[in-house]
């Protein structure tokens, strides 16, 4: 089976004037199979966000290549790039900030649908259906982001990400800003989506909580100082870490 996402030698070097170049992501490679949920763990500053920002093309890669569903997307621009976002979506760490404060949640969720040419009325119906699917009442479409709780907002963000029926969903610490019970609810929602959509939805799950990854992911990568230092099934990685850093990461939690 062809992987949905394949990353080769991906590198990001930040060069700041007057300072030494800083390699935030150092030649990482991995692939993600259809229907799989791949976790990436690592301490704060290990380069997880930088890596996914390159994959979503919000940040230009210094080197390396990104293949989404067999298509090279590393250097796409403009219209071609916008097309890619019909296959790949992301849920952000800060739910409230990920919605324009001046627009309703419904506007935000429907934006991608309007952009692919859906009429206003169809969009509204689809938005309400998506909200329902993510466990929110339909009238949340008319609320502003500051009028809902973080957890509710994150549900709306998931609804937005699912609007174009993407094949790859990237969650960059989608649960970190939420409290434990809400975290669990969001994970349950994601789990439900996975079992509904089977092989048509793959998830890249960024997290720095190793126990969440253990519950949720099929496979896990451990990142440290911009490199991938370990890879495997979560239970193995946690039970028998090969790498010294992984060992420490686990010790600090258990």
């Amino acid at each position: 089976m062809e992987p949905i996402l394949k990353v080769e030698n991906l590198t990001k070097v930040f060069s700041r004037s007057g300072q030494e170049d800083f390699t935030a992501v150092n030649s990482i490679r991995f692939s993600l199979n259809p229907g799989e949920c791949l976790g990436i763990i690592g301490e704060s500053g290990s380069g997880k966000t930088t890596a996914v920002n390159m994959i979503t093309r919000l940040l230009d890669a210094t080197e390396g290549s990104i293949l989404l569903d067999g298509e090279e997307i590393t250097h796409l621009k403009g219209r071609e790039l916008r097309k890619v976002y019909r296959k790949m979506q992301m849920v952000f760490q800060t739910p409230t900030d990920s919605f324009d404060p001046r627009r309703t949640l419904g506007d935000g969720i429907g934006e991608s649908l309007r952009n692919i040419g859906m009429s206003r009325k169809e969009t509204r119906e689809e938005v309400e259906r998506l909200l329902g699917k993510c466990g929110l009442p339909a009238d949340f479409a008319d609320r502003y982001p500051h009028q809902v709780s973080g957890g509710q907002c994150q549900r709306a963000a998931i609804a937005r990400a699912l609007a174009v029926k993407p094949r790859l969903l990237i969650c960059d610490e989608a649960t970190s800003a939420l409290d434990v019970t809400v975290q669990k609810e969001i994970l349950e929602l994601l789990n439900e989506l996975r079992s509904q959509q089977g092989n048509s939805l793959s998830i890249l799950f960024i997290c720095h909580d190793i126990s969440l990854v253990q519950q949720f992911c099929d496979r896990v990568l451990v990142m440290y100082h911009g490199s991938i230092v370990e890879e495997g099934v979560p239970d193995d990685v946690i039970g028998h870490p090969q790498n010294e850093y992984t060992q420490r990461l686990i010790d600090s939690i258990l």
Partner: protein
Amino acid sequence: MREVTIRKQRIKKDSVKFRLILFGTLAVLLIVCSFFSEYLTPCDPYLQDLSIAKQPPDAEHLLGTDRYGRDMLSRVIVGSRTSIFSTLLLVAIITALGTAVGVVCGWNGKALDTVLMRISDLFLAFPGLVFALAVAGVLGGGLQNAIIALAAISWPKYARLARSQTLAQKETAWMKAAKLSGSSTVKLIFKHILPNIIGPILVTSMLDIGTMMMELAALSFLGLGAKPPIAEWGSMMSDTRSLMTTSPWITFSPGIAIFISVMIFNLLGDTIRDYADPKSRGR
């Protein structure tokens, strides 16, 4: 608790709305009056009658007459057209021009940004009115050239503001989300950037109306703006400075007109700022 805060929000929102309607109506009224000023004058504003020169306010001439015996009230009403329209035009020009430059710079970055921002620094470093004088001097007198001169020196403030606001907006998570929603650059700018930055910019332009009115008047006074006998508040005031002690109504009438219009626009500016704050909106 929640009920209480919601009610408080609603009250606040209602009062902002009320002020917006009040000052908005006043401003519109002022503009409409100035537009139809010719039909609203009680006497002919240009008719000279030296036999009634420098008369203090009475029933026939509510604001008295000037040194040529012209009715001050009529002159102030007719003057509103030149004063208000040229000011609004000027502010509209600098707001649009400055915002456009600022957004392009902030969004694009790179060389274009550097070049345009250095140019705006140049303008900002120069004493504004002196520069405007030079420009108006080169172009020659006249209201149109005064507007061009003031526009040339006033846009950088807006460009700076729009640029810094655009830069801040560009980094937000919702801009990233909007990009991932497949919105084109034009859509991102018009649907997400502009609505989020226009509040502070509009407030600045509202508060600038007063300044611009005075600067246009200053240029008129120096013979580089509106020329007599055209009634214009600024030049009317400047021309009659010498009569301030003997016939104060002649100087004060246009002065009060400027004061009232500036106040209306300033209050409107404050209200728009309150209204633009998203937290004061919604239920």
